[in-house]
């Protein structure tokens, strides 16, 4: 079974959503910054918000079609929805919460299903507790069990785990995957955390200002981000516009000139021809700094620059280096002390070719 959606929606704020996508069985990440339209998409699919136009279908079942017209009421859509705030019923026990969607079943079967779902998400010992008597992770598990016990045709998750520790996230996601192995329903998982996207997603849809700007596996999309907001979310602090200056088929590399500078970077060979515009994404933690010109290194990019600024963010020193273009570099406080990062001091940037992720904007725009 697959979930397909084509949606347009204009909000009074001026924001316009215009997307079209298919969610296969398994976990598809809906990735984007806050305000990119992720939650609006989930709400339109679930029927909580009415799109201006479009079509939503799960398998053969059409849930919404502005042409026919057809708009199946929320309670009849058979979609599981886990809200960002979880929305557990505070006056009910864990067991009553999970049983809520099973009202049509006879009592015995209902209890059996509740116990089974609670077991799958490891909350069988908490059935008699109320939501305010259990931990955050246990509440997430309860919300998942409540949505899944009804055997929905698809599951919609709105940043359900973002408030939790990474370890707990992984455990819960493992439980969710195990549950879904037998059922194979499409799961649409909204997040703005690239770590969650890499860890949990089979596929990823990148969203920007109400449009799908890239899709593919999380690695395909997030390792070569072509758009600045996407690059920042994917953990690439540096994103440069550049043009291809020279290609070396034999060396498997190409040289790119950063726009508006005379600075060149050697990057892995891509499909872009000489003269084509590309984007180069670079993690701030992948750049090495030296206080004198280094020699005898395998790294191909050694750029001379000056320190423009350096500030502490928690236990990380963020240095801004002016080397034609401005580079953000992350260091440990110890490393920064060794270098003596005073503004105006000369430094050398060392960047490995393979740390540079190149996106050819025309490749990854749209679907």
């Amino acid at each position, binding site marked *: 079974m697959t979930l397909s959606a084509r949606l347009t929606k204009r909000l009074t704020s001026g924001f316009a959503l215009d997307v079209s996508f298919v969610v296969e069985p398994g976990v598809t990440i809906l990735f984007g910054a806050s305000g990119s339209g992720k939650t609006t998409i989930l709400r339109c699919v*679930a029927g*909580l918000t009415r799109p201006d136009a479009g079509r939503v279908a799960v398998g053969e079942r059409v849930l919404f079609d502005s042409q026919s017209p057809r708009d199946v*009421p*929320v*309670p*009849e*859509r*058979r*979609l*599981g*929805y886990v*809200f960002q*705030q*979880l*929305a*557990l*019923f*505070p*006056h009910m026990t864990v067991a009553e919460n999970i049983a*809520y*969607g099973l*009202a*049509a079943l006879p009592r015995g079967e209902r209890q059996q299903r509740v116990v089974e779902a609670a077991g799958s998400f490891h909350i069988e010992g908490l059935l008699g507790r109320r*939501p*305010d008597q259990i931990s*955050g992770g246990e*509440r997430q598990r309860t919300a998942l069990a*409540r*949505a899944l016990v*009804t055997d929905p045709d698809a599951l919609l998750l709105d940043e359900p785990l973002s*408030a939790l520790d990474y370890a707990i996230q992984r455990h819960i996601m493992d439980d969710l995957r195990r549950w879904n192995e037998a059922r194979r329903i499409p799961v649409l998982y909204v997040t703005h955390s690239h770590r969650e996207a890499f860890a949990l997603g089979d596929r990823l849809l990148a969203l920007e200002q109400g449009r799908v700007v890239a899709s593919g596996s999380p690695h395909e999309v997030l390792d070569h981000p072509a758009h600045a907001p996407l690059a920042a979310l994917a953990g690439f602090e540096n994103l440069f516009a550049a043009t291809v200056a020279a290609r070396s088929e034999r060396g498997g590399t190409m040289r790119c000139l950063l726009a508006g500078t005379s600075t060149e970077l050697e990057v892995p060979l891509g499909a872009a021809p000489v003269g084509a515009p590309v984007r180069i994404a670079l993690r701030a933690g992948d750049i090495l700094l030296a206080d004198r010109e280094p020699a005898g290194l395998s790294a191909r990019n050694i750029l001379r620059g000056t320190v423009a600024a350096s500030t502490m963010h928690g236990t990380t020193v963020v240095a801004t280096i002016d080397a034609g273009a401005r580079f953000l570099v992350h260091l440990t406080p110890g490393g920064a002390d060794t270098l003596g990062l005073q503004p105006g001091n000369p430094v050398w940037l060392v960047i490995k070719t393979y740390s540079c992720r190149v996106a050819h904007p025309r490749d990854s725009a749209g679907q």
Partner: protein
Amino acid sequence: MDWQALWLTARLAALVSTILVVISIPLAHWIVFNRRRWTFLVESVVSLPLVLPPTVMGFYLLMATGTRSPLGRLWNEWTGHPLAFTFEGLVVASVFYSLPFAVQPVAAAFAQIDPTLREASATLGASRLRTFLRVVLPLSIEGVVAGLVLSFAHTVGEFGVVLMVGGNLPGVTRTISIAVYDHVQALQYREATLTALFMLAFSFAVLLMVYGLRRRPLAAAPMA
């Protein structure tokens, strides 16, 4: 103490507050959850008794329940006796007069409920009615109790409207607040003092109940 007036008042207030809870739950639900633009109009009409002088309110109600009005005539044909200056007439007038005291706490309780709880209920297959009975009402029970208590107390304490619509017929329309007024008019200060003291203690007890109830964090705390 005027036991007859006290018993009459208790019967009146119990009946009125029961009727009001039954009316105010669907009315408050409509006011809070419908999305029509003219909702504020209904809200304003419901709240009119809060600002209208009781004599003005009583005057209109008297006109409405008199035998010359359509309502009064209809009542007369059905029951064989007029509506004005009867216990039933007093009940009708009091329902209108105490309406905001029942609707407002209930509406406030409904409005406080996290909208995602109702959405979650819908995604789990629940109809609007089931959502209301299983989620909205249980989480608003304090507001409903507050509405019940406040409309009871307000009915007990009304004076102007009763005087206008009910007059002062012992055992029929003579409530306790009218009795106090009567005692003072007749210079019976001992009786007036006793009755007034009783009313003071009663009103204070009611408010203790309402505010004491609100301190209980039964359903107020939103879930993270």
